[in-house]
């Protein structure tokens, strides 16, 4: 096995000129060349400032909630004291920034309404996150482990886990995460499968929301709401429109909307100014790059230079 690791290589190649410019083509004027070939480190610095400045000097831009977030909120709001929900922390530390605010806000909402929570994770890396958040929010609302909430920890194989819980949560988890037999946990009295659960909440960075919908929703008719990273959120619109998903939050903006709806400010709302300014900066860069590109294109046409053969699709 020949091993060539990436030592000493630099990612990206920002400083490289587009080698496709024909050899006979004259060097364009500095204006549009500069627009098209800004140093990537300059872009990095601008993005860093665009994110950091609003965190230090907040703008307090107003957040408007979307229909999906309102649906998510309403599903939680409908719960009665004593109802049980399953809360699945389906993510790892890499997407904590987007998803932690959703988990915190949802648990706050649940504990505030005296809803009982059965927590678990389908990612081994989700255990530490779940323990930290459960501990923090349970303390805020004086909730007792085993009576108001329980943590089952990680279980291997998400698909089998989802299906198995539809038959028996007890058999799926003979003990909780802390070695206590599930049968002896007071909260578990009379609770054993999806039929005994009012609502299932998954907060996820992957296609897990889709799998909960397909298996827990499809086979066992479990009502589901999901917190998603922005990247995943855009993919689950069809499920929401089809009624397979009762509501969802998309990315940090979704978390901010939900925080606003429950009236408790958190990392989501605090991050919205930075999110806005950073998006604006990126859009400006894209526009500048395209202005340079269009100038170059019009000049190439005038001088009869080679045509760009690229296709969109």
């Amino acid at each position, binding site marked *: 096995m020949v091993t060539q*690791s990436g030592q000493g290589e630099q990612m*990206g190649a*920002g400083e490289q000129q587009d080698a496709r410019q024909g050899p006979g083509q004259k060097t364009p004027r500095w204006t549009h060349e500069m627009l098209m070939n800004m140093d990537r480190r300059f872009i990095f610095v601008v993005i860093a400032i665009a994110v950091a400045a609003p965190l230090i000097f907040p703008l307090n831009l107003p957040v408007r909630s979307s229909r999906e977030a309102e649906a998510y909120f309403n599903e939680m709001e409908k719960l009665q004291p004593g109802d049980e929900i399953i809360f699945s922390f389906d993510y790892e530390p890499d997407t904590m920034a987007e998803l932690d605010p959703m988990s915190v806000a949802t648990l706050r909402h649940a504990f505030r309404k005296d809803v009982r929570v059965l927590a678990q994770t389908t990612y081994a890396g989700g255990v530490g996150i779940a323990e930290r958040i459960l501990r923090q929010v349970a303390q805020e609302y004086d909730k007792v482990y085993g009576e108001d909430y329980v943590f089952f920890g990680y279980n291997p194989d998400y698909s089998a886990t989802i299906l198995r819980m539809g038959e028996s949560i007890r058999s799926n988890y003979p003990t909780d995460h802390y070695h206590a037999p599930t049968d002896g946990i007071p909260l578990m009295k009379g609770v054993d499968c999806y039929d005994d659960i009012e609502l299932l909440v998954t907060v996820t960075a992957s296609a897990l929301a889709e799998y909960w919908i397909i298996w827990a929703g499809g086979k066992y008719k479990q009502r589901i709401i999901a917190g998603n990273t922005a990247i995943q959120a855009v993919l689950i619109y069809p499920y929401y429109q089809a009624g397979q998903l009762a509501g969802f939050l998309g990315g940090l903006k979704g978390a901010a909307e939900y925080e606003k709806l429950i009236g408790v400010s958190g990392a989501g709302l605090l991050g919205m100014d930075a999110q806005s300014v950073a998006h604006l900066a990126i859009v400006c860069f894209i526009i500048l790059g395209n202005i340079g590109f269009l100038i170059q294109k019009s000049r190439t046409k005038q001088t009869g230079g080679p045509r760009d053969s690229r296709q969109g699709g």
Partner: protein
Amino acid sequence: MRMAFRTVWYGLLVACLACAWSAPSAAAHVAHADSLDGGAQEAEGAEAQGVSASSEEVLDGAGSEAEGGETPSTGWFDTEHTPTAVATLLFGAILLFFIRSARSGKPLFIRRIAGLEAVDEAVGRATEMGRPILYSPGLDPMEEVATVASINILGQVARKAGEYETRLIMPNRDPIVMTVAQEVVREALTQVGRPDLYNADDIYYTTQSQFGYAAAVCGTMMRERPATNFFIGHFYAESLILAETGNATGAIQIAGTDSDSQLPFFICACDYTLIGEELYAGSVYLSREPLLLGALKGQDVAKAVLLVVLIAGAILAFFGIDIGPYLG
């Protein structure tokens, strides 16, 4: 083998017909769907009964007018899933029929796929410029469909590279994918009579780390300046780093992935992009493997059936006839 195949196929067909004709509870199913909708028909739904409905009746929507009798005893068959059962059997039968046709040597047509038509041009360009070709199979392990499709395409690219005497470089993230790729390339070069061109060191392992892999591939692009880059397989966040660097080095880029969030970057930074299913079809298009060809054809026919159901259902829906409940 052929006998067993035939038995399974006929079995499926018979079961499918039987299931569709004798579905004992189309009406009960409608009742269930209505109650789920929570509409005004709830009362009707509760009264709906197990009346045997033929498949024609089902399509006419006549099954919703249920009357008399009592709620069907579910027995061993879960009647709630009748539409899915019919769909499963029907799809299985279509698939097996076309796999069998393809195996028996019947020619099956697949349309031109732009990105793959360009393979010749791309390899030719590398030859003219005296530069190598770079091929990345993505990050997923061997068992993923996208990786299998990628390796199929790799074989064909390697053949072209052999014919044009062009060097092929392939950094890998997965050791198993690497060994399979080495075999595939060696075989392809042997087939075109150029086994001497095979160099195992050009198909190498880099590192498991996602960003380590991206850095290694980008390094190769900067150092070797390949004239053509192929990014074919399942990619994650590193896609944008790869596509951007390749774009900057001025290579022709052909990408193919089924990863939705990475497609925008490939579409904008690459010359040709195989989108989602096109990637799977692309591997069939190039390899012409009968089994894959038959399966693709079967999926196409199923797609055509779905299109007919979709359009007919939409027209009926406009006039207030909802066939939705018969679809599960």
